[in-house]
């Protein structure tokens, strides 16, 4: 098992660090639980008392708007108290070590840390050292994983297509720097998608990418053929070192999703993007705002998925503590 650290003795989620190593039935349970939270989000009072009295700390070592605010909203809708720690102004910049900072936050009786960090494995490291009973949720670590983003994408796909079996999904763009893509590929393969393709120039593909269980295309038009789900990725300029691309204009010409190019996919294909969108770089505005786009559904689903994962992890911690000697 790659990450038994995520599960308690009964096989329930107690941390959520990566989709790797999680079974199809557990991923499906996350999606089903999120479905119930979507209904909560449509009520007059969009709040349930599940995590009343629990304290959730958002620990963001990297800037984020969408992810941090949806995690915050998710925790609040579960009735938890939320603390947002802004790392750039915190004591780590005064020389305090990560472990010391965590000990201090734990001393404030925190029950869950939502962690985003630029280093791959950061959430895993924290989960290994944290006090028993405290849940860790990975909100993105380096190039490694962004499991809640992948699961909200799976929820959006299931909502629109009703299933994963028989689906052909194309992930397009900067696969190399994308933790989102890695998590999506794992989730899609576990949930039974028929084919996962990555479409990108070789400079934006990880070495041995096909070992992740994908078919590789360098040509967008060719790769879009028969596709049910189109997932665009943002060009991560801030993570690029060296000249991986000749220019944004040329990238848009070759890999930007336009109405014309989208015609090569199935007529009922949906278009997704984890945001933030670079209009005119990886996607044309008419496509991003078009009928086939489900980009804003993804944001709404993000709240439900995060509510599901947080309540399941807290539940797994509670029942794990009960079984402990």
């Amino acid at each position, binding site marked *: 098992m790659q990450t038994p650290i995520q599960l308690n003795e009964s096989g*329930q989620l107690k941390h959520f660090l990566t989709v790797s190593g999680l079974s199809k039935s557990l991923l499906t*349970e996350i999606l*089903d*639980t999120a*479905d*119930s939270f*979507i*209904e*909560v989000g449509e*009520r*007059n*009072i969009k*709040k*349930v*008392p*599940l995590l009343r009295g629990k304290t959730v700390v958002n620990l963001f070592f990297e800037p984020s708007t969408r992810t941090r605010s949806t995690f915050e909203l998710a925790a609040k809708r579960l009735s938890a108290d939320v603390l947002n720690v802004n790392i750039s102004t915190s004591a780590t910049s005064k020389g305090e070590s990560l472990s010391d900072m965590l000990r201090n936050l734990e001393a404030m009786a925190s029950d869950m840390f939502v962690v985003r960090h630029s280093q791959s494995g950061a959430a895993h490291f924290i989960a290994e050292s944290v006090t028993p009973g405290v849940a860790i949720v990975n909100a993105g670590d380096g190039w490694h994983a962004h499991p809640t983003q992948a699961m909200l994408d799976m929820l959006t796909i299931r909502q629109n297509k009703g299933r994963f079996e028989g689906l052909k999904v194309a992930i397009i763009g900067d696969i190399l720097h994308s933790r989102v893509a890695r998590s999506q590929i794992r989730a899609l393969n576990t949930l039974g998608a028929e084919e996962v393709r990555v479409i990108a120039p070789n400079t934006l593909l990880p070495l041995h990418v096909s070992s992740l269980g994908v078919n590789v295309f360098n040509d967008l038009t060719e790769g879009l053929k028969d596709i049910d789900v189109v997932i665009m990725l943002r060009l991560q300029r801030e993570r690029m070192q060296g000249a991986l691309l000749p220019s944004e204009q040329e990238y848009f010409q070759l890999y930007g999703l336009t109405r014309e190019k989208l015609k090569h996919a199935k007529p009922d294909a949906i278009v997704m993007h984890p945001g933030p969108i670079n209009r005119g770089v990886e996607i044309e505005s008419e496509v991003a705002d078009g009928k086939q786009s489900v980009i804003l559904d993804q944001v709404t689903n993000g709240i439900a998925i995060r509510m599901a994962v947080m*309540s*399941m992890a807290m*539940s*797994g911690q*509670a*029942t794990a503590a*009960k079984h402990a000697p």
Partner: protein
Amino acid sequence: MHERQSVEALVHSMTQQLKRFLADKQRHDIEFIGIRSGGVWVAQAIQAELGNQQALGELDISFYRDDFTRIGLNPRVTPSSLPFATENKHLILCDDVLMSGRTVRAAMNELFDYGRPASISLAVLVNLGRPELPIQPDIVGANLSLQQNERIKLMGPSPLTLEIQQTEVSPPDQQA
């Protein structure tokens, strides 16, 4: 060891009580709500006998249970569905078995997140009369008292039967 009993007569009695109850209170604008899954079946059976064709509300109270930190989240939670506005309505809340009253408390908390109903009345197929909260049913199919090692379960949806099961030890955290 278990025995099964049909619930037809109990539903009939509940329907008659409900008619009198609504007439006494002069309540006309009513909506039915069942607590999943047994309560939904009970509500459907009463509606069928009344010839009531209104859409039925269904509650899954998993997010409102008071024992989340002890037994965790129900892995098979399904979305609640209230296909009508509850504001100012007289709600008939139906469940299969009333024991401690904790499920009904959770259901009432959930209902108030949808709005402010005019009233909530409680209809249960079986009342075990072991309240741990000040909650009493308005409509009762049968009052029963069970041994510590017995539990009762409504089997359904078709046919609906009540089954009394003998357990080795009494279930510690049964919430009904």
